[in-house]
């Protein structure tokens, strides 16, 4: 396995050939913000929060999908990147109805943490206030589309880890929605195994366990590492 050496934020970093800049940076203790990426699932580069500057390239690159190259000079936290990230999170906040104060995930939410980390104390864009529903037809879980950021973690974990592919996406652009089966109520899904992996990987309170009240929800993602290492390396470790 060949090793590439590169510079990230002025720090000499090494990564295996084919490894993403994102992973190499995190392994070196440089934490690039992200929303759609989650260790153990494939990357789709949907959220654009992990964009980085690569010297010599005019375009910004999604670090989760860009492999490390020998001699690369990468910057992850320039004022330009910060401005882009801030706008991306503001767009997400304005697009649907994210009311932290009455959300099950309040205080334990990746979107909220991102907004806080980026210093977002107000949203410069006009809120869209779409009328979106809540589906609590499933016996144990619910989905509140008001809080969905379309990261598709649920779609990927259901397909790649559970193997059920209950979740998918319908529509385009701002009309996109995650759906169960052929857009049927979750409770009527024939493919759902009720494993709850989608709920645990969801970064916001969009997918939740029924019965949880405001700020009560906690996500547990340890299962992902356990299953993925067991599958790839035949090691059953937590």
């Amino acid at each position: 396995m060949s090793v590439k050496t590169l510079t990230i934020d002025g720090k000499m970093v090494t990564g295996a050939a084919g490894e993403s800049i994102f992973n190499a940076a995190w392994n070196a203790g440089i934490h690039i913000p992200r929303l759609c990426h989650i260790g153990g699932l494939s990357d789709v580069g949907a959220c654009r929060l992990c964009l980085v500057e690569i010297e010599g390239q005019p375009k910004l690159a999604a670090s989760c999908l860009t492999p490390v190259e020998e001699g690369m000079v990468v910057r992850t936290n320039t004022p330009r990147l910060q401005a882009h990230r801030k706008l991306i999170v503001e767009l997400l906040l304005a697009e649907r109805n994210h009311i932290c104060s009455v959300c099950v995930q309040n205080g334990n939410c990746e979107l909220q943490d991102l907004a806080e980390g980026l210093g977002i104390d107000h949203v410069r864009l006009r809120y869209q206030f779409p009328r979106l529903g809540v589906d609590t037809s499933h016996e144990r879980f619910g989905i509140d589309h008001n809080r969905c950021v379309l990261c598709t973690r649920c779609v990927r974990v259901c397909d790649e880890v559970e193997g059920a592919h209950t979740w998918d996406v319908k529509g385009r652009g701002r009309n996109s929605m995650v759906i169960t089966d052929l857009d049927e109520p979750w409770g009527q899904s024939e493919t759902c195994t009720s494993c709850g992996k989608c709920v645990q990987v969801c970064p916001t309170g969009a997918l939740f366990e029924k019965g949880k009240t405001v700020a009560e929800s906690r996500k547990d993602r340890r299962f992902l590492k356990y299953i993925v290492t067991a599958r790839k390396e035949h090691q059953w470790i937590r």
Partner: protein
Amino acid sequence: MGERIVISPVTRIEGHAKISIYVDDEGRVESAQFHVVEFRGFEKFCEGRPFYEMPGIMARVCGICPVSHVLASSKAGDAILGVEITPAAKKARRLMNYAQVLQSHALSFFHLSSPDLLLGMDADPARRHIFGVAAEDEDFARRGIRLRQFGQRVIELLGGKRIHPSWGAPGGVLKALTEEERQEVAGWIPEAYKSMEIALERFKAILDGFEQEVRHIGNFPSLFMGTVDEDGYMEFYDGRLRIMDSEGNIVADGLKPWRYETFLAEASEEWSYMKFPYYKPMGYPAGMYRVGPLARCNVVHAIGTPLADRELREFRQRKWVVRNESFLYHWARLIEMLHCVERIEELIDDPDIVSEHVRVKADRNHEVGIGSCEAPRGTLFHHYEVDEDGLIRKANLLIATAQNNLAMNKTVEQAAKHFVNGRRLEEGMLNRVEAGIRCYDPCLSCSTHAIGQMPLVIELRGRDGELLDRLARN
């Protein structure tokens, strides 16, 4: 040609409101109205939400009494689940409710009303506020603020934060007290007793100086409603409703709160956003009833704790007290605060209060859930109907302050007729009209930001709209 005097906004109350006083050609007050000019819309926008989120959402109705909404909402949720919560959860809910009544009453008495009582109705408005009280008697003001802090601290220890704790849930509560927290609460008790003793003595000493106000601010017959336990003692969390008339006769007893629609109904008027509940058998508006501290002190057989009962006996023995004077809400509020301190002391001595068995789990089993409790300002009802997936189809909130709406309007009118001279406006007259409202400690929205800082504008207009006189307080 008559005129209309408008007091807008009413100050030192919680929320936004105005008062219109209608004056005839001779300058005599014809009538007066209390308008609530804000609209919250909680009943509408919680439609479609899961019922187990309701305690957290409903806590946001109010920053002063979020706990009441959390409790009524959690109880409605218990009813939808169809469960009996654990004794420890019930005690934890009771503890938080007493803490909330204590802190809310402290706010009403010390922060909002004591300036009128201690400095006088005609005192300079520039210093007629809690800081003016502090300048006059620092220890008294400090004790009031500390009493509120005590109540808030208990709420914080249980619920994680002082305002809008998302702690209640259908089926129980999220957390009990720890042993260390229990000891901290115990440490506050002696000071609270001392402060209550001082406040009660002070109030009783100055009360005789307010005979005019007692007689003419909200002194009229009406029904009274409050929650009592099975033996007729004062109850804040769970019990049956009792309705009493102004002569002390029990009109109805043992009423089940979850059947409130069979005996209470709501009317509305185009000039106010607040509904006008009334006692159904007597019709509208004859079925006017009062709720809150005065009503509770009237309807109970006794309070049930020794110190508060001693005060209640004195309250009932004052020669000119005939249980109708709204001005005595202040006194009743102090008695209830003392009762809350006694109950908090009792509850934290109970081993159950540190038990972790505070939540039972169940699924949606019933379509309708109605929860009720005694909020600081009176009986509160939350009524939810859910669909088969547990999403709210309909919500109805019957708020304590609204139940005093008819009485508040009558109080305003009575005070205006007695104190206001339409030909010659004086700030002190209008303050007495406002003080009529403050007796009820109405909670019109959810914050204390109206604490004497908002400009008060009074306009005297002719019927055709011309401005005849104007007073502004900045």
